[in-house]
Every structure is written in C-alpha cells, then in structure tokens.
C-alpha cells in the first residue's frame, strides 16, 4: 500500500467511524427525501417536468455534496492544528505530499457517499423517462470533477490558516460566490453571462448537466463547458502536490 493510501484510509476511518460523516450524510438524505416527496406529490407534473425534477435532484446533490466535501476538506489541516492532533500525524513516516493527497482522497469519500445517497432518489424520479442512469453517470463524472477542484481549494484554505473557522468561512464563501450566479435565469443568454458561466466551475458544470438532462443534447455537444471544472481540478491538485510540504506544517504561514 502506498503512503498516501495509508493516510487516506486512516482519515476515512476517522471521518466515517469516529467522525461526523454519517451525520452529514443523514442530513443530506433528509433534504433529498423532502425534495423527492414534494416532486412526487405534484399531480400536475408532466413528462418534461419529470426530467426537470431529475435535473434538480442532480443539481442539489452536486451542490450540497460539494459543499459537504469542502466542509470536510477545509477542516483537514486547520482542524488538526486547532485540536492539537497534527503533531502526531507529522511524526509518522509519510511525506507531507502523501498527507495532503491522502487527506484530499478522504474528503472525496464524502462526495462519493453523497453520490451513493442520491442514486435511489434519481431512480424514483427518473423512472419512465430513461433519465436515472444518465443522471447518475453525469453526477459521477461532472460532480467528481467539481468536488476534486473545490475540495482541493478548501484544503488550500485549510493549509493557509491556523483557525478552522477561517478556513471553513473561506471555503463556504467561495462556494456562495460560485453558486450565486447560477441562480440568475438570464445569465447564460448574454455574452458576458456566457463568459461568466464558462469560467465558473459550478455554473458551467450545472449548465452542462441541464443541457443533457433537460435539453436532451448529446454528451459531446457542450463539452467545452467542462473546461473550467477540468482546469480547476487539475490546477488545484498540482498546486496541492507542489505546495504540500509548505502546507503541512504545525503552524500556517510562509516561514
């Protein structure tokens, strides 16, 4: 087993056996249950709106799943500093890069758990419109890209600060800034809106998903919209690996 997988395994165990992972996922499932029940009780829902319900579930699953991933990753380093448990981890015979990669991999298990929880709801809402399988595959591919990118940014915040509150606030503020433009209905239709949507990893990912699930376009038609999530994920992982030794310190700072 490579070093980073040892760290990932230990961190995942801390998250899911001793930590808050199960409680966060439980809250996530309550949210999706409420949404699904409301959608199913809508007697006037027609065929197209059912596809939109599947799309909404993917979008909420992606947004909240990424939010929970950022919450976990933003706690990864600054949380250990605050709790005074980082010293023990630094004394283990693993490189600092392996610690960073292992912690990011553990944070990604939160996203995968959210995805697994979303699947039964997609199945219920997508029955009969052949949308459930496609929606699940979209959530897995597009959502994982967004989760890696933004989870990695959360970890960068965590490495740069000594306070857990600061890194969590930074991560959540970033998500808010990226998510807010997606709620403006007229944005993608203007030239400036197009640019803003394409450079926003969340906005472009949600737009791509909608185009396939509701617009019934092919997977390759709007592939350019995935440029931002792919670039952000690659750049963030590269920065984390390159800056790993500087991030994983007992105290944050440039020293």
């Amino acid at each position, binding site marked *: 087993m490579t070093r980073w997988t040892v760290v990932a395994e230990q961190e995942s165990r801390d998250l899911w056996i001793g930590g808050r992972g199960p409680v966060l996922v439980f809250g996530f499932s309550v949210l999706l249950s409420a949404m699904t029940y409301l959608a199913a009780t809508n007697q006037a829902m027609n065929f197209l709106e059912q596809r939109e319900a599947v799309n909404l579930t993917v979008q909420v699953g992606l947004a909240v799943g990424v939010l929970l991933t950022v919450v976990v990753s933003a706690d990864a380093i600054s949380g250990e500093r605050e709790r005074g448990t980082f010293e023990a981890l630094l004394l283990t015979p693993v490189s600092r890069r392996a610690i960073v990669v292992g912690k990011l991999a553990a944070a990604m298990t939160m996203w995968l758990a959210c995805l697994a929880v979303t699947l039964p709801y997609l199945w*219920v809402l997508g*029955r009969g419109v052949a949308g459930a399988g496609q929606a699940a595959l979209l959530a897995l591919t597009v959502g994982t890209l967004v989760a890696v990118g933004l989870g990695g940014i959360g970890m960068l915040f965590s490495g740069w600060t000594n306070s857990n509150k600061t890194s969590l606030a930074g991560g959540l503020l970033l998500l808010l800034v990226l998510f807010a433009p997606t709620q403006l209905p007229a944005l993608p239709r203007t030239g400036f809106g197009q640019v803003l949507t394409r450079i926003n990893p969340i906005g472009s990912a949600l737009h791509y998903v909608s185009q396939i699930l509701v617009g019934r376009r092919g997977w390759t038609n709007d592939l350019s919209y995935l440029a931002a999530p792919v670039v952000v994920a690659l750049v963030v992982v590269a920065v984390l690996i390159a800056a790993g030794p500087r991030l994983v310190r007992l105290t944050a700072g440039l020293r």
Partner: protein
Amino acid sequence: MNLLSLIATVVMASPTITMNQDQLTAQLGQTLTVESVVSESGPAIAHLNVVSLDGVYVDLEDWTQDVTQPVPAGRETQLDWEFQAVNPGHFAVYVVLIPRSGALVAGPPVHITVSPRQTLDTGGALPVAIAVPALLGAAALIGRLRRAARA
C-alpha cells in the same frame, strides 16, 4: 408591391402543404415525426404549430426545438418535423408557410391523441423518501452508541 413580385404572384400557382398522415396516437413522452411536403412555393419559412383541442396551455418550446425551417423556391420541398408529446390530451399539429410576400398558407392538421402515463407517484416515492434517511440515521446512531459503549 413591385412589378416583378406582382407578376410572380399572378403567374405562380399558390403554394400548398400536404402532410403524410392525418391522425396519430402516442404515449406521453413519445417522440413523433411527421412529414410535410410544400409544393409550388417561392422562398419561404415553414413553421410548426401545436394546438390543444382541450384548452390546455401548450408551450411549443417543450414540444420541439426546431419550430421553423427554410423552404427554398421549387416545385416540391419535403420537411420532416420531430417533436415530443409532453402533455396528455388531444392536439392538432399543423404547418404554416410564411412566404416572402403574400398571405400565409396553412396545411391540414394532424390530430394527435396523447395518452397519459403515470410514472411518478407518491406511493412510489414515499418508501425511498423514508427508507434512505431511516437507514442512514440508524447507522449513524448505532455508530455513536457503539463508540459511547467502548469509551
């Protein structure tokens, strides 16, 4: 109206539209294709329209993404129209020709009966909406209780 178009109007026969069928039945969500042939037309634009015969509101954008097609000048132009039945009920689908000059020409309607298909209901959603949080909540609770017992 200039002299040339006046002559063209007098000389050319008036355009006609024919459809390849006059009645269709479909299930909600089914994709259908009808074929229209525009004859004796100058350059024009053909437009597809969907009307509910039950008074239900029809959003044309939901039914089809391609509602207009250009028609070149010629004896016969075949146009295929693909659309999806997104509302249950009785509908008429027809094509209107908008020539560069002159009056609109409407084709015969294709009557479509769309039968409803209930795929989403409270009964189907409720077990999942209850079971998933219940299982996850139980798992979280059991985990906490086991940890507390060990401590």
